[in-house]
């Protein structure tokens, strides 16, 4: 055997070893985030979820923050080339690039959050029922509003935020049909100052309960509500501590549940290339408790109405 052929066969052996399916070894998981883990909402929730998963499962985790649209393909392929077993991308904007490249990396599971896509053999998606989260928020907002005007401030109208917004209006109308619903968009996920000023403008137009969806812009809404002395309904991430006298409750969107479910299913081999929508029954959405001064603010009748709303959400009777 020449040196060359020895080298070649060694290389071939090495490649076979590397290509072996990675069983019973620590799972390599990548989480790709569109924003920063300190945003207090969307990306914080995912980070919290992956931290919990890390404690629960035998996984190695790499978190990549602030991936903008132009970088998505590059980041996805670089993880896939590094033989990551699971790549969780957090946001609907990842769906298209994932569909473009997934076939080249059949060893890797691509999981997309807040989107509804799937492809054989290795793309699955986990979406939360944002529409019903908004529905619950709208119902509570209409109940606690005195002026009968409530407002929603969205970051950018991406699908989940539009779903939430539409649900917010439906939920409010269900509880009090003559509720006036105002809606505005910041046009940015990070412009807190504009989020605050938009909220102030809705309050000037009579809104006394506001809610907000997005990333950092949500902080602006909560601060503006606190300053003006009106109420806010939190969205997605329980941020009660941020303003305990302002945040009545939070319509939870538990994105940590997505991550936990996805990884659990990868590990026990039950994950299928399909899209999973997590509603109230799966714990994908929920309602935070009424705490502090709001525990006493909700009357028995109000609580009965809220219970009715939750029952309808469970039964899927909200459209």
């Amino acid at each position: 055997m020449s040196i060359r052929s020895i080298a070649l066969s060694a290389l071939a052996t090495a490649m076979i070893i590397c290509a072996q399916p990675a069983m019973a070894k620590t799972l390599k998981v990548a989480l790709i985030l569109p924003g920063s883990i300190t945003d207090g909402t969307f990306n914080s929730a995912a980070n919290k979820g992956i931290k919990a998963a890390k404690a629960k499962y035998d996984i190695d985790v790499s978190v990549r923050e602030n991936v903008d649209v132009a970088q998505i393909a590059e980041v996805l392929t670089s993880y896939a080339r590094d033989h990551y077993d699971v790549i969780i991308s957090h946001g609907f904007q990842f769906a298209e690039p994932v569909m473009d490249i997934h076939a080249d990396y059949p060893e890797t599971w691509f999981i997309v959050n807040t989107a509804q896509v799937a492809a054989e053999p290795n793309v699955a998606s986990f979406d939360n029922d944002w529409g019903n989260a908004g529905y619950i928020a709208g119902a509570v907002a209409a109940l606690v509003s005195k002026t009968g005007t409530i407002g929603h401030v969205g970051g950018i109208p991406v699908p989940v935020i539009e779903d939430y917004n539409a649900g917010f209006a439906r939920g409010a109308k269900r509880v009090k049909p003559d509720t006036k619903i105002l809606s505005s968009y910041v046009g940015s996920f990070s412009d807190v100052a504009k989020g605050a000023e938009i909220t102030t403008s809705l309050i000037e137009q009579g809104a006394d309960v506001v809610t907000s969806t997005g990333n950092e812009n949500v902080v602006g809404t909560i601060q503006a509500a606190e300053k003006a002395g009106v109420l806010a309904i939190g969205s997605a991430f329980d941020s009660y501590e941020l303003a305990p006298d302002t945040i009545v409750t939070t319509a939870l969107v538990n994105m940590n549940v997505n991550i936990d479910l996805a990884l659990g299913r990868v590990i026990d081999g039950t994950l299928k290339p399909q899209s999973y929508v997590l509603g109230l029954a799966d714990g994908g959405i929920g309602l935070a408790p009424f705490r502090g001064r709001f525990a006493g603010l909700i009357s028995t009748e109000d609580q009965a109405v809220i219970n009715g709303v939750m029952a309808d959400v469970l039964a899927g009777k909200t459209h």
Partner: protein
Amino acid sequence: MDQVVVVAAIASGIRFAMPILFAALGETVSEKAGVLNVGIEGIMLIGAFLAVLISVQTGSPWVGLLAAIAGGIALGLLHGWMVVVLKVDQIVSGIALVVLGAGLSGFGYRLALDGGAVRVPGFRQLDLGLLSHLPVVGPVLFSQHFLAYVGIALAFALGFMLRRTGLGLTIRAVGETPEAAAAAGIEIDRVRLCCAAFGGSLAGIGGAFLSTAQLAGFVENMVSGRGFIALACVVFSRWRPVGALFAALAFGIADAAQVRMQALYPDIPYQAFIILPFVIALLAMTMPGGAARGPAQLGRPFRRG
């Protein structure tokens, strides 16, 4: 839109305008001396972060403001040192500053405040009692943040300084004909360094206004392009501080108006409103009335002949 909405939009527009105004005023002085700093976005982020960090630690937004000014001066001097002493390309150094500011402020925030929400003792809006409650003029003129009045006064003061004083003449000479100024005994590089530091300090105040007056808290990338809009204001105002005041106000009020129109006309796609301030800025740039000519030596390092 009724009167209440219009008044509220103007009051809110002034708040929108202030961070941009401070940054634009500093940049005007810096550019007048020939130092172009496209990195004010980064300096504003550092200012916003330091103001929050130090006011949380000391309990006083004023100390926080001082910290923001100090941070602004430090970064302004860094840029000055790069472009005046080392004669690095000004655009390149400026862009580096944008990235540096974004990175340092975000990293510092996680390091020092754990990236979490903190209670920030921010500036209060002025309450002049009766005056603040006057209809129309009350909300617009008499219930802004103290810093807003400082900003407006500063615009006029800087306008006077640049036009009518010896110091202004020196700065303009350094930016227009540095050879002549050097022949007259002016230390070109020293003046440029000072102006770059001054520009940095005002950008720092702009950031502090955002994080401790308009809001109370820091989030990553919260400046959201205001530093670049400030750059546009400088050109738009033809390098005149009072012009920069009106440019910033026009931009701020347009932004505040579009925010309100979105909720008033839900049937029109919201994007049409969001672009409104930018359309106004673009139109203003193309308005006739004298070609926009900046200081002759803007962006060029001075080399002794």
